[in-house]
């Protein structure tokens, strides 16, 4: 299992790039022009998240510097989940950027290559903003009774959390 996962990590990006560019050439697409066109959008994406990052990193920094996060960690029962990850897990269904802010705090405190850093990275990659997505999608069609959506969404999120703790 471990070898397979590492193999995937090392080869996925090079193979993907090879495939996309190769397919582009095969289809006679002006690959470099297309690339630079798209890269411009990437620039806008990166710049447009800056205000969010400033706000949330500042917010998490305040929680960290005040000692609140350590105090919270002291309150939580030990054993089931690694304590520093609990705020990330709790925040994840509500806000993607706030959860990212908390994960970045873990990177800073424990390092991105530590168990906690890796678990936080995987966790944010395999779960979604449950409540935001549900309200956005259901408001669009004026649905108020969501039947089994919440149960399914929470089950998938729990599976993602468990998988991250196991694979980190």
């Amino acid at each position, binding site marked *: 299992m471990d070898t397979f*996962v*590492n*193999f*995937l*990590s090392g080869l*996925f990006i090079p193979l993907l*790039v090879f495939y*996309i*560019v190769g*397919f*582009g050439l095969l*289809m006679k*697409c002006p690959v470099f022009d*297309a690339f630079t066109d*798209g890269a411009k*959008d*990437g*620039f806008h*994406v*990166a710049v447009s*998240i*800056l205000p969010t*990052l400033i706000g949330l*990193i*500042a*917010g998490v*920094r*305040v*929680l*960290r*510097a*005040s000692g609140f996060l350590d*105090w919270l960690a002291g309150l939580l029962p030990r054993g089931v989940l690694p304590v520093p990850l609990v705020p990330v897990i709790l925040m994840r269904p*509500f*806000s993607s950027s*706030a959860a990212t802010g908390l994960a*970045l705090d873990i*990177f800073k405190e424990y*390092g*991105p290559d530590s168990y906690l*850093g890796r678990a936080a*990275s995987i966790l*944010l*990659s395999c*779960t*979604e903003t449950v409540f935001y*997505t549900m309200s956005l*999608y*259901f408001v669009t069609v004026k*649905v108020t*009774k969501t*039947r*089994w*959506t919440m149960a*399914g969404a929470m*089950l*998938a999120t729990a599976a*993602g959390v468990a*998988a*991250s703790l196991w694979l980190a």
Partner: protein
Amino acid sequence: MLNGIWAGMLLIGIVFAALHGTLDQVGQGLLDGTGEAVTLAISMVGVMGLWCGLMEIARQSGLLQALNKMCRPLIRWLYPHIHKDDPVQELIATNMVANLLGLGNAATPAGLHAMKELERLEEQRRGAKTEREDARPVPKGVASNEMCTLLVLNISSLQLLPVTMIAYRSQYGSVDPTSIVGPAIVATAISTAVAVVFCKIMQRRKKR
């Protein structure tokens, strides 16, 4: 939602600091945080530029459309009561492919459009009488099986390559920022598999 969360972070942090005498660190933390955000965003320009550039090649060369077609049999299996010529399948496929590739900007409009089409489909079903227990329409304002499935799959996260996470990791000094790609793909596969099994079970149950 974020308004409350953000204000809560700041206010709780400051009140807590005032009670514990850590206000100077909080001031320092605020300023440090802003600098950190700018460095992070700049490092994101590279990774996001690379990824969006590659995705533009995929779009212009027809790779995204080819992926859409490949998703069709899967969609027919996941949404068994949608007619095989219904245009909503195209939207669901676009939403799925965009989610797989982490193109949030493309996934959401397609997903919302798909929701509207699913509502239209349900409206049609309300007009037509059916004897089949599992194909009976739901009343207005209630989510249909298809809507629930679309939402649960979207929330189970399909994204294969966590592009922004790789950028963040490298910015915080990771020795091997991409080492989480494999675990992330496996974890995503697990959460999605759980979602699919759950949807298939719930689709078979009788409606209320």
